[in-house]
């Protein structure tokens, strides 16, 4: 029991429960259960639930401009819902209903979650420790930007595709053919001419793994044609415009993201603690489960 009382959420829930009983107890006298009152506030909140318009002023504006017949449609819908709901309640239809049970549990979970969020406290040590433990989650993939001139080994045969490529390499280099001019040379590749900021597995999915490895191992970045390189489809000459190595960023680089992740982890562990505290207020007796 001592552990439970240390858990402030349980206090909070007890208190709100008490408050609820008190208010409903005093309301009961004045509340005529056969009378449905449609006022501005309740109708607005009803419409908000239905239309999912979040901005309050937008909602009010829409409501105030609404023609009389539309407005009375809403009133009718509200009254219908309220009447049916109350009737169902009077018949105690909500009892032992798994959907309603699930829904009210969900509401309790929301409250618990909000509570867990409100009691967050992320320190620098938390950030350091978390980042250290989960470094692999922040790995930045290598990526590459390049263009290529392609010779199809299907149409030319492997050997002549290769010799065509070697010849072309001389021509491209001697004439200083630029990145954007490369497209005028070679055959049409099944996929793209230019690859922009693409990761190794994307390149592998268009060229095969070997070729992807070769490209990511290229050392010369800039206006130089390189090759020939063989892929699953043929022979390629390549000009690389940009190559970023894969790397683990420093904490400062990704502090915002790490902060959010730590927050999420804290919320989760606060939540688990809170649920456990709630369960601990009950004594549980598991009877013999076999027949």
């Amino acid at each position, binding site marked *: 029991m001592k552990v439970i009382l240390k858990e402030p959420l349980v206090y909070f829930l007890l208190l709100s429960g008490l408050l609820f009983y008190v208010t409903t107890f005093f309301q009961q006298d004045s509340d005529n259960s056969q009378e449905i009152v449609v006022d501005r506030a309740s109708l607005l909140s009803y419409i908000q639930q239905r239309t999912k*318009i979040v901005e309050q002023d937008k909602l009010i504006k829409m409501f105030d401009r609404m023609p009389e017949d539309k407005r009375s449609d809403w009133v009718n819908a509200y009254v219908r819902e309220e009447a049916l709901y109350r009737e169902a309640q009077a018949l105690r239809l909500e009892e032992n209903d798994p959907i309603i049970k699930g829904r009210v549990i969900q509401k309790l979970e929301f409250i618990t979650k909000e509570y867990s969020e409100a009691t967050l406290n992320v320190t620098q040590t938390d950030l350091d420790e978390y980042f250290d433990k989960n470094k692999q989650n922040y790995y930045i*993939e290598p990526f590459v*930007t390049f263009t290529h001139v392609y010779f199809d080994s299907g*149409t030319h045969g492997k050997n002549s595709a290769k010799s065509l490529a070697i010849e072309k390499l001389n021509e491209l280099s001697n004439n200083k053919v*630029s990145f954007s001019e490369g497209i005028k040379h070679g*055959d*049409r590749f099944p996929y793209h001419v230019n690859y922009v900021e693409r990761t190794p597995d994307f390149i592998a999915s268009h060229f095969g793994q070997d070729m992807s490895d070769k490209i990511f191992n290229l050392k010369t970045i800039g206006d130089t044609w390189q090759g020939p390189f063989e892929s699953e489809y043929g022979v390629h000459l390549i000009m690389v*415009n940009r190559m970023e190595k894969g790397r683990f960023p420093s904490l400062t680089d990704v502090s915002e*993201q790490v902060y*959010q992740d730590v927050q999420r982890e804290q919320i989760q562990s606060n939540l688990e603690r809170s649920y456990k505290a709630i369960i601990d207020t009950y004594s549980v007796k598991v009877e013999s489960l076999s027949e």
Partner: protein
Amino acid sequence: MNKKVKLSSIALAITLIGSQVNAGETQLLWGDTHLHTSNSMDAYFFNNRDGTPEAAYRWAKGLPVINTSTRARIQIGTPLDFLVVSDHAEYMTVPKRLFTLKDKALRETEFGKKLVKLWEGENPTMAGFELVGTVNDLKPYAPFVTKEVRQYGWNQVIEAAEQANEPGKFTAFIGWEWTSFPDASNLHRVLFTPQNGKEAAKYLPFTALDSSDPEQLWNWLEKTNKAVGSEIISIPHNGNVSNGLMFSRDDFNGAPITPGYAKLRARWEPIYEVTQIKGDSETHPIQSPNDEFSDYETYAHLLDAAGVASGAEMKEVVAEGDYARRALRTGLEFEEKLGVNPFKFGLIGATDSHSTYASAEENNFQGKFSIDSTPEARRDMPIMPGVKNMWAVSAAGLSAVWAEENTRESIYAAFKRKEVYASTGPRIAVRFFGGYDYTAQDAKANDLAKIGYKKGVPMGGDLVKAPKNTAPSFLIHAVKDPKDANLDRIQVIKGWLNADGTTAEKVFDVVWSDNRKKQKNGKLPAVGNTVDINTGKYTNNIGTAQLSTTWKDPEFNPNQRAFYYARVLQIPTPRYSLLDAIALQMDVKETGHPATIQERAYSSPIWYTPSK
């Protein structure tokens, strides 16, 4: 990737000397990637009891078939070149086995007995709800998801596709739909493979019951690729009913997108389904207020039965993460931030028809399901949440593909390189190339496509490193559907990333019909409207049969990331609901939908990236 794309049979007009090469021609193929038969649970419950995958292929090939509700003989107007039968993987064939085939293995289970009692007794609707409910709650009934049951469904898919596939003539792909539906937000994906039945038999479709998290789906794709050499593409369902989740800035668990997420998504999802029967998701008037054509076939009713309230003002849910144009913009932001663009996709249309028949023709529309295939049913049975009648859906969605030949490998390669585009129905031919060397003369050339490929990249490609003081230019050509209406105009839609990290978009009218002059406000006057709402007829004496131009970006900034795509508009034609209204002798205004629409095609984008 271990599957070698065979280009050997392609007639490449190659000259081996100098730089005369690079002129591989492509042909235009039309198809549907998203189609359900009675093997899909929901299709079955909406009265499609015997529409088989075989029938779906027969319809696509242009053969007469039977409408599964009316039992009338029906036939597609213009046949398709390819089709993916993509039945929902969850409980695939289960209702059919329970109620039509009276399969004892399923009927004599405890839940089976209960369902059969409902179905054959007084409450068949409830049987449907009960079964669907277990999927929506992700609490599948174990005997209905055994390996045997899943294998049975998958075999049907494989066999039908293998039989219908005729290389060079008609392509039948093996595929399915993954039906993730958290809180009534539609995150569905259509998946298909260029591989044959033997390869596809090495795995069973990944279902939402395995996981509703797209990242888990991509992980499965990666794992299966490594394990059995599968090659599969994943296409997100149109996003207007996703509650903002389709292109959310967060992942499925609410954490911000990481480079790892972006990498996986870019690898497995190169294409997005932008338009279909459940409406158009290019953009929305709320998101593109300056785009006078943005209010087109919007459909933002969540598929949430609980949200069906008074009906009166069930306002549409319009979220940033629902629409293609905004997602392309968000993608530029992420590319700058993460180094990888998770939303770098090409565009296609697809029907998502549940009637067995891929129908996107206004004058020959077979309905979203089977039950709504007649004008009266569409008028009287609003079976989808939030709609007043079934005219809320569009007779829309086809994929156009520029491929070397009509084979699985060739079409699939075009999807992978995004040389594909979307049409809302008409077979409008669209070429869209980007480069730095196109001249005004090129747009008039007889061999426009050849020049297009030679001097630049086709739709779906990338431009990098603009030569000094050169803005990219775009070579664009559109030809009307020979059986359909004339064209109004071609527009280029540009989106870009500003230095301050914000994004923007602009629509340019680049070429149009009838010698119209732009007004002082820069807008082009409307093309007019020839539709007679009493007869549903229109004439082609406005508009033009083809349009072509070379357009250079007048506002190019070499330091800004940008994308460009073409939108081609038809002249106004009758919406299918007008034809229904005329048949029913009712006022078209009572349908609640416009009498006429301007059908359209969206090219896949071309991206520009500044060099660092």
